[in-house]
C-alpha cells in the first residue's frame, strides 16, 4: 500500500518536473518554429496554435476523465456493484460527432492554408535556386548571376521564391525561425517554397531530411538585410575575387578594408541577442559593412556561429601563411578541380569559393570561418566532417605526398583573403 501511494506521488512529481523543465527549455529557443519572421511563418503559426490548443483541450479532457475514473471507481470494500452495461448508443454517437466537429474546425483552415501557401509566388519575387549537395548547400541568384554556398543573403520585405533541386540524394530545406515550414529537396524534382522575410537578422538553417553520413552537419546560415544592403551585397558578389586573380589585373581592387559598425536595424523583439565572442574575430568580420553588404558580425548571435570542436588528434603547426604563395599553390594544386573561384578555377563539385573570405562559416556551416579551421579543414576534411567527398590533403603517414602545414597555411591565407 505504501509502495503504491509513494510511487504515485513520485509519478506526479516527475510529471510536474517534466512540464516545468519543458517550459524552462522553451525560454531559450533560438530555432523555434513558432513566431517565424515571415508571412509563411504567420500562416503556419495560426494553424499550429489552433491544432495545439484543440489538442491540449482534448488531451486534458481525456486525462481528466481517466484520472477521475481511476480515483472514483477504484475497488474499495464498499464500492457499489458495477452495472453490467454493454453500451449506450446515444453516448457513443455523441463521442463520434464531437471529435468529428473538432476535426472539421481543424480541416477548414488547413485546406485554406494549403492553397494559400502553395499558390504561385508573386511575380516580383527574388528568385533563388537552392541546390542540395551531400552535405552542403549551393545558392544561386539567377536574376543577378551570383553563386554562393552555405550562406544565404535575403532582403526583407520582398518575397523570395526558392527553387529547390538536389544534386544527389533527398535533402530538406529548413529555416525554422524565418519560414517555420520546410520543403524537401528531391532528386529529379523541382520544388518551390516562397515567403517574405520580415526582419533583418541572422538565422540558422538545417537540412532536415536524413541524407547520409553528415546529415547532422548540413547546415546553412541566412542573413536578412534591408534592400539597400542586399543590393550592396549582390554588387560585391558580382565582383571577382578580392585577391587579384591575375596580379596584373587591377580592376579587382581588394574589398573594403575596415569593418563599419552595423547599421542594419534588428527588428527582433523576442530574441535576446548575445553576440558570439568569436564572431568578431572571424575573417568575414573584416569584410562586413555597408559597402560590401556583408552582414555585420556584431549582430550575429552566439547560436548562429558554429562551435563544433575540431576532431581530437588533428593538429596544425603554428605557421603563418602567405596569400600570394597560396594563390600559386591553389592554381597548381588539386583544389581547382572541384572549386570555382571566379577567374581562377572552374570546378563545380564543391562550393564556390569566390568570396569565401567573406563568409562566417565553412564546411556546410559546420565550423567557424577562421584561419585555424580552414587550415585543419584543408589538412584533413574527412576527419573534420564524416563522409565528405573532399579528400585529405595534409602530409601524413597515409599520404606521404601530401601538402606540408606551411603550404596549407598559405592556401588558407589566400582563401581567407577572398573577401
Amino acid at each position, binding site marked *: 500500500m505504501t509502495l503504491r501511494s509513494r*510511487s*504515485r506521488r513520485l*509519478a506526479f512529481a*516527475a510529471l510536474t518536473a*517534466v512540464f516545468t*523543465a519543458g517550459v524552462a*527549455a522553451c525560454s531559450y*529557443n*533560438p*530555432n*523555434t*518554429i513558432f513566431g517565424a519572421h515571415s508571412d509563411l511563418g504567420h500562416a503556419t503559426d495560426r*494553424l*499550429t496554435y489552433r*491544432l*495545439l490548443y484543440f*489538442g*491540449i483541450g482534448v*488531451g486534458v479532457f481525456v*486525462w481528466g476523465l*481517466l484520472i477521475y*475514473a*481511476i480515483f472514483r471507481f477504484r*475497488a474499495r470494500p464498499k464500492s457499489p456493484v*458495477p452495472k*453490467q*452495461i*454493454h*453500451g449506450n448508443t446515444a453516448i457513443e454517437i455523441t463521442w*463520434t460527432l464531437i*471529435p468529428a466537429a473538432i*476535426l472539421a474546425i481543424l*480541416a477548414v483552415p*488547413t*485546406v485554406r*492554408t*494549403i492553397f494559400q*501557401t502553395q499558390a504561385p509566388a508573386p511575380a516580383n519575387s527574388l528568385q533563388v535556386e537552392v541546390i542540395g549537395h*551531400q552535405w552542403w548547400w549551393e545558392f544561386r541568384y539567377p536574376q543577378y548571376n551570383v553563386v554562393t554556398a552555405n550562406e544565404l543573403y535575403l532582403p526583407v520585405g520582398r518575397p523570395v521564391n526558392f527553387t529547390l533541386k538536389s544534386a*544527389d*540524394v*533527398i535533402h530538406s530545406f529548413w529555416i*525554422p*525561425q524565418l519560414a517555420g515550414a*520546410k520543403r*524537401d529537396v*528531391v532528386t529529379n*524534382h523541382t520544388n518551390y517554397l516562397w515567403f517574405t522575410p520580415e526582419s533583418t537578422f541572422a538565422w*540558422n538553417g*538545417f537540412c*532536415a531530411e*536524413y541524407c*547520409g*553520413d*553528415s*546529415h*547532422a*552537419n548540413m547546415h546553412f546560415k541566412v542573413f536578412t538585410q534591408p534592400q539597400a544592403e542586399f543590393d550592396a551585397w549582390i554588387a560585391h558578389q558580382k565582383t571577382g575575387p578580392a585577391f587579384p586573380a591575375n596580379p596584373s589585373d587591377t580592376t579587382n581592387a581588394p574589398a573594403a578594408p575596415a569593418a563599419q559598425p552595423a547599421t542594419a536595424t534588428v527588428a527582433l523583439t523576442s530574441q535576446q541577442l548575445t553576440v558570439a565572442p568569436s564572431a568578431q574575430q572571424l575573417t568575414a568580420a573584416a569584410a562586413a559593412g555597408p559597402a560590401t553588404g556583408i552582414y555585420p558580425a556584431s549582430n550575429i548571435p552566439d547560436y548562429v556561429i558554429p562551435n*563544433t570542436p575540431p576532431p581530437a588528434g588533428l593538429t596544425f603547426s603554428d605557421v603563418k601563411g602567405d596569400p600570394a604563395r597560396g594563390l600559386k599553390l591553389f592554381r597548381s594544386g588539386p583544389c581547382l578541380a572541384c572549386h570555382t573561384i571566379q577567374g581562377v578555377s572552374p570546378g563545380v563539385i564543391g562550393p564556390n569559393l569566390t568570396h569565401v573570405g567573406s563568409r562566417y562559416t565553412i564546411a556546410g556551416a559546420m565550423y567557424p570561418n577562421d584561419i585555424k579551421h580552414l587550415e585543419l579543414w584543408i589538412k584533413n576534411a574527412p576527419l573534420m566532417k*564524416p563522409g565528405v567527398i573532399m579528400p585529405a590533403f595534409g602530409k601524413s603517414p597515409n599520404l606521404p605526398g601530401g601538402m606540408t602545414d606551411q603550404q596549407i597555411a598559405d592556401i588558407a591565407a589566400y582563401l581567407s583573403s577572398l573577401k
Partner: protein
Amino acid sequence: MATTAATLTRAGAATGYKGGVWSWLTTVDHKRIGQLYLYTSLAFFLIGGLEAEIIRTQLYGPNGTIVSAQTYNELFTMHGLTMIFLAIMPMTAALWNFLVPLQIGARDVAFPRLNAFSYWVFLLGGLFINTGWLLHAAPNGGWFGYAPLSTRAYSPGLHMDFYVVGLQIVGLSSLAASFNFIATIINMRAPGMHMMRMPVFTWATFVNQFLMALSFPIVTVAITFLLFDRFFGTTFYENAAGADPLLWQHLFWLFGHPEVYILILPSFGLVSEVIPTFSRKPLFGYPVMVYSLMLIATLGFGVWAHHMFAVGMGPIADSVFGITTMLIAIPTGVKIFNWLGTVWGGQLRFTTAMLFALGLVGLFTIGGISGVMHSSPPSDLAQTDSYFIVAHFHYVLFGGSMMGLFAGIYYYFPKITGRLMNEALGKVHFWGTFIGMNLTFFPMHFSGLDGMPRRIYRYEAYQGWTTANHLSTIGAYILGLATLVFIYNFLRSRSAGKVSGPNPWGAPTLEWSMPSPPPDYNFAKLPHVTSRYPMWEGKSAEQIAAEPVVKRWEPGTPGATEDPVPTAEQLGIPMPTPTIKPLIAALGLTVAFIGLMAGKSLPIMILGGLIFVGALYGWLLTPVEPEVEGH
C-alpha cells in the same frame, strides 16, 4: 501448497512443454511457437533498447562523441528496424499465436506447420539483419530507407544489402502468418463462437492479418526493386535513368502506414481484454469497438502520403491526405472513450496489467493528438523530420503498442506458464516505465518544436536543445532500468511465481476456462459457446464483482482441476506430428539469400532454393497428423 505445485507440474507434463531442444525445433504447437516468438521478441527488444540507450547517451549533450557519425546512423536505423520488425511485431505474434486458438476454441491454428515456418523465417531474418553489426555493415539508411540514398551509388557496401534482404525475409514471415490466421479465425471457431462473440483481441488480430496480407506485398515489391537495383543493375531508383525517388516513398508508406496500425491494433485488443476484467464490467460498446477496428484498418490504406507532405505533392493531394488522416482520429477516439466507458462505474482492480492498460489509454492519446497535429500539412511542414515526430511515434509506439503488450504479458503470463508474475516488481516496472517514458519522450515535443532535426548524431550548443536532451537521456536510463526489472521478474516468475490456477483474474473469456498452462490439445472437447463472456455467463453482477483477483492459488479455486490433465492419447485426440521441415525450409530460404549477399553466388543460391523446395515438398506431401486407421 506443495501438493498444488506438484499437481501442476504433473499437469505441465501433460502439456508436453517438457522435452529437449529438438522438441522446440520441431514443434508445431501454436502455444510453443507463441513462446518462441515471445522469447525472441523480448531478446530483440533488449537489443533495440540497448541501441536506443547508446543513441540517448550520444545525444545527452552537445557534440557527443560516444559513437561516430556512421555508427550513429547505423544505430538509429537498426533501432527502428529492430523495434518495429523484430520486437513489437513478433511480440504481438507471440500473443496471438498463443491466444487466438484458445480464445476461439480451436485445437490449433489452421496450418500448424506454416505457423512454425513463419517463426523460423522471422528468427533467421532477424538474425540475418543483425549480422550486419558483426561485419561492421549494419543498415544505415534510416528505417524507411529512402531512395536514392539507399541505392548502390550513395550507399556502397553491405549496409543496405542487409536491409533489403533482411526485410524481404522478415516480410515473408508476416505474409505466411497472415494467411494462416485469417483462415484460422474464419474457420476454426468452436461451435457457437460467432464472429460477434469473439474476444476483441481475436478481432484485432483478425483485422491485423488483413493489414499484413495486403500491405506487405507492396513493400515486397518496393524492396524487390531496390534489391534488383543494388544487385542486378535495374534502374528503378537510379537518378540518371530519370527515376522518381517518390516511387519508393509512395510504395514504402503505402505499406508503412498500415504497418503502424499493425503495431497498435493488437495492443488495442489486449487492452480491450484487460480493462473489462479488472473493471468487472463488460466492454463498453463491443460492436463499435469491432467496427472501429475495421474502419481504422480501411482508412489506414488511404493516408500514407501524410509522411510525404514536404515532398511537394501539390495542394490537392496534400488536402486529401490531410483530411483522410484526420478522419482516423474519429474511430480511434471512439475506442479511447469506450475504454473510459468500460472503466466508468466499474470496480477497478489495479493489477500491473490494468495499470499498463490504463497507461495505454492515456499515453496513446497524447501520441494520437500529436499525430493529428501532423495531419495538417502546412503545420506539418514545420514539424516533419524534427523531434516532434520522434515524440509522436514513441508515444504511440511505446505509450501505445508497448504498454499494451506489457499489459498483455502480465495478464497472460499465468495462462502461458501457470504462474503469476510478481506484482510488486510489476508495479516498480510500471511506474519506472511510466515516469521514464514521459521523461524521455515528452521533452522531445519541445526539442522538436524548438527546431531540432531528427537523425542527427550531434548538435551544437546554444541551440536551446540541451536541457530537453538531458531530460530525455535521463528518462531513457530510467526506462532501461525499469525494463531490466521486468526482464528479471519475467524470467524468475516462470519458476518462482505463484501458481495461478486456470483463471486467476476472474476473467470472462474462453481461454480462462482451461488449465494453465493449457494441455497441448487445448480443449478436450470443443466447447460450445453461447455468449461473449462464457466465464461470466449466468453470473449476477454481484458474483462477477466478487470474483477474486488471485494472488495465490488455493486448491478448490473454481474451475481448477487437481487431477492430472489427461494426455492427447488418452483422449484419442490426433495431434499434429512434430516436424523439422518448416525449419529446414526457412533455412533453405535464408541460405538462398545469403548466396545473393555473398557476391551473388549462384551455387549457394541454388543450394538454398533446392533445400527450400525439397523441404516444402516433404512437408506438403505428408499430412499434418499421423494417418489414422480407416482413412
